[in-house]
């Protein structure tokens, strides 16, 4: 699992992201999956002779928005190029992509410590707060989808020509955990901007990994291996863990690492040679003469800027600062903008905002609510927290109120009334209970006075029982202590 101290891994990611556009990248066909095969097609996305591409401006805006969110340098003029290779799922046998002049260059993805795998969130690796530099972000068209049957193959062209954004990282990543967090942190940014649903398991985000190992003090990179067929963030992590161990073992045996593409087999839990890269592919990139250079400074950039959302890192900092939530809670809230909005509404007027966060993130979330449609108004949580804070109910009572709130949604004040839960804070009433407790438990009184301070709990329990749990426990504690030391 952990890399032996002598070696370190060098990892770079190429992430393909499907964009949330109505139509395809270069034609007006619907950008939608799951419909009848080859039902969203036209001469352009089928690559019929004579058809011509026209760029989808929304896809360009979404790519620029991603660039803005990730701190990239945005090109004033970008170009589309043709990437030439033959494959049956590619209708023109060239893919329109970007090579020399991509829309975005540079930028970075800050790794969210809480988006590392759970069991290593407490390690130095997760807490290092690294930001992974990006090389570039460019826009291209996706290919069709092949299906292989027993005696033939079929192609569904619905995906052909849909917009695909490629985000390329620098070889800055060092561990499988970092790669895991990179993908999660990137996804949060993409979700914030409504750029993509970015769900790897649905193919909305796809990832190729380049990985090599080197002795820890060495500057030069080792021979890199490309990993494919990674269909989840945990798959990426497992594949990297396996592959790094494989490479280190080979290096320690003095074997050379082959420059190759390997396929991750999730069931076998291992990578296998797919193809060697001795014959490097020559894609013969050249500017696509069918497409004019894209001037981003003529409205496109402005439109993207107008859609800039609050970024995950900014949002988390604000939640910590304004609501007193923990960094972990901020990360959880930041990852779900609907829940976050719900929380902010709940906490807005509450006296103890951190308590509101606890209620929502621990108790409420465990009931798997849909914050967008739940009949439980966010204000109820603010009220519940206030009821505890002002001593109207104690925390045990609050649990009851919460349970009732889930069962029969209503204002917590109503529920307190309905269940007759209001806490007794009246000193004389409490004094009477305490006197009764002291009188009924001489043994405990004796023990307490003899120095066994724990014995006071039995007295408190007596008071709570007598008062049906309504006594204010803090006041009871004070009154008992005063009476016992008198």
């Amino acid at each position, binding site marked *: 699992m952990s890399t032996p101290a002598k070696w370190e891994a060098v990892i770079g990611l190429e992430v393909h992201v499907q964009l949330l556009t109505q139509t395809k990248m270069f034609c007006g066909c619907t950008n939608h999956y799951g419909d009848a095969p080859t039902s969203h097609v036209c*001469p352009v996305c*089928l*690559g*019929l*002779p*004579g*058809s*011509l*591409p*026209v*760029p989808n401006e929304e896809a360009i805006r979404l790519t620029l928005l991603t660039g803005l969110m990730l701190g990239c340098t945005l090109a004033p003029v970008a170009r589309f190029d*043709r990437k*030439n290779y*033959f494959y*049956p799922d590619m*209708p*023109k*046998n*060239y893919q329109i992509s970007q090579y020399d002049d991509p829309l975005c260059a540079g930028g970075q993805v800050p790794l969210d410590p809480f988006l590392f795998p759970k069991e290593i969130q407490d390690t130095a690796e997760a807490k290092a707060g690294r930001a992974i530099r990006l090389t570039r972000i460019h826009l291209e068209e996706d290919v069709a989808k092949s299906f292989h049957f027993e005696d033939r193959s079929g*192609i569904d062209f619905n995906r052909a020509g849909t917009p695909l954004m490629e985000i390329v990282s620098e070889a800055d990543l060092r561990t499988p955990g970092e790669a895991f967090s990179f993908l999660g942190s990137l996804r949060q940014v993409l979700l914030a901007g409504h750029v993509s649903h970015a769900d790897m398991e649905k193919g909305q985000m796809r990832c190729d990994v380049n990985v090599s190992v080197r002795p820890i003090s060495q500057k030069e990179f080792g021979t890199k291996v490309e990993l494919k067929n990674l269909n989840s963030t945990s798959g990426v992590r497992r594949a990297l863990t396996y592959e790094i161990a494989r490479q280190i073992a080979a290096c320690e045996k003095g074997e050379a690492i082959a420059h190759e593409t390997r396929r991750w087999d999730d069931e076998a839990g291992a990578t296998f040679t797919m193809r060697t890269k001795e014959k490097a592919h*020559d894609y*013969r*990139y*050249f500017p*696509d*003469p*069918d*497409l*004019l250079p894209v001037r981003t400074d003529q409205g496109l950039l402005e439109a993207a800027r107008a859609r800039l959302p609050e970024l995950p890192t900014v949002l988390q900092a604000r939640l910590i600062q304004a609501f007193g939530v923990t960094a972990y809670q901020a990360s959880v809230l930041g990852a779900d903008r609907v829940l976050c909005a719900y929380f902010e509404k709940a906490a807005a007027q509450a006296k103890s905002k951190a308590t509101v966060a606890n209620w929502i993130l621990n108790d409420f979330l465990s009931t798997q609510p849909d914050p967008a449609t739940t009949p439980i108004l966010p204000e109820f949580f603010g009220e519940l927290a206030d009821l505890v804070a002002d001593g109207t109910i104690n925390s045990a009572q609050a649990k009851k109120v919460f349970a009732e709130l889930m069962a029969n949604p209503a204002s917590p004040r109503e529920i307190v009334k309905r269940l007759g839960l209001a806490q007794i804070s009246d000193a004389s009433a409490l004094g009477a209970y305490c006197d009764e407790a002291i009188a009924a438990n001489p043994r405990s009184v004796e023990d307490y006075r003899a120095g066994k301070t724990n014995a006071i709990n039995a007295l408190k329990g007596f008071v709570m029982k007598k008062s049906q749990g309504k006594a204010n426990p803090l006041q009871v504690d004070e009154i008992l202590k005063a009476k016992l030391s008198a």
Partner: protein
Amino acid sequence: MSLAYETIATLRRRILSKEIHPRDILKDLFTQIDAREKTLHAYTYLNRESALADAEKADLSLPLGGIPIALKDNLNALGDPCTCASKILEGYKAPYDATAVSLLRQAGSILLGRTNMDEFAMGSSTENSALGLTRNPWDSTRIPGGSSGGSAAAVAGRIALAALGSDTGGSIRQPAALCGCVGLKPTYGRISRYGLVAFASSLDQIGPLTRTVEDSALLLSVLAGHDPRDNTTDLRPPEKFLTQKNGSVQGLRVGLPKEYFLPGMDSETESAIRSAADWFKKNGATLVDVSLPHTPTAIAVYYILATAEASANLARFDGVRYGRRATDARDVLDLYHRTRSEGFGAEVKRRIILGTFVLSQGYADAYYRQAQKVRALLRQDFEKAFTQCDLLLTPTSPEPAFPLGERTQDPLKMYLADVFTISTNLAGNGAISLPCGFTKSNLPIGLQLIGPRFGEETILRAAHAFEQAHEFFQRLPPS
């Protein structure tokens, strides 16, 4: 006289005055086709029935109402074949209309048939067609020029009133010159390329081949304009061309680029061009000596850039989705190899290989990128020249039509046929070719007038004035 001999402008007047009906035009054209097509082989496909049906329902009030027009076989017209004169598109039926075709339909015209061409528009003689030779109407032992040779032969041979062609390096103008008709290559971006099967996307332009300059202007007026389906079309609003025809060239500055008048050029061509220049001078134009210094590089630049683009444009013909598919392929790679080996002709293969080479790693800098730089210089040549003059006057072709078979084994010599036309495609300018004389053996000679970008109005006015002052356009090829 047979209506097949009339111009579109005349026929439109006679249709509007109800003197004739479009079915009469078709009848005369079909009579003429029956007599001459066997020799000329200008067509790859004729829409006899559908043309007759369309003639009955044509909206005669439209600008081209009831006018039959032929299409080069690389323009998609819904339901018709679109072979590009290649075996690889055998049996292919176009599933959509090119923008230019749909504009013709909207203007009321009737699609008459599809004309022969060099395979995928690669050639200068139409001898590269997989569907047979086309012959020059003036001398059936000679080539009609190319690649729009079928369109030019049909118009000149009076078996079409007008035809659309495409011009990547001279493919409208050179056959127009060699067949004695009018061929216009508009400015790049003037007419939508959507639906034109691409040869070299940054050079291709659709244009009309007609009997007269007036007809050329009529068609351009219908075809020109921005198309949301073609990112490279210009955004300027639609124009109507040659609405005023005063026949004057008074005050026009006509540039004679010295690089287009070379020692050793065909003497009959040279003297016809010189006489044309003299006519302009006599009629009040000023002749200006200009230079386009990068002209000698044009052919090399063209054959790098055009083939590079073609190598990608023609990659889609793989037998997977449409057109010819090789049988008995072992696997996908074998399917590609066989389909393309069997489907493409020698010249197309030559250009795909050349284009693949100039884009290859290690060579792209020396060839493709270097050629792009020189192309920019060629463009500057024209920009500079047009600060000194309004039009350039040159020969269209260095010589008249050459004999069939003379150059099929010598591609380099064949490439030289476009030496005077290629630069305008590289620069993007518009240019026209119109008849300016005949050789002693009665072969037409073409005059080329090149305008500044989007200067079609200037080109058409000057060409119209020259044409109407001469009788060349009225001469008929031997029948």
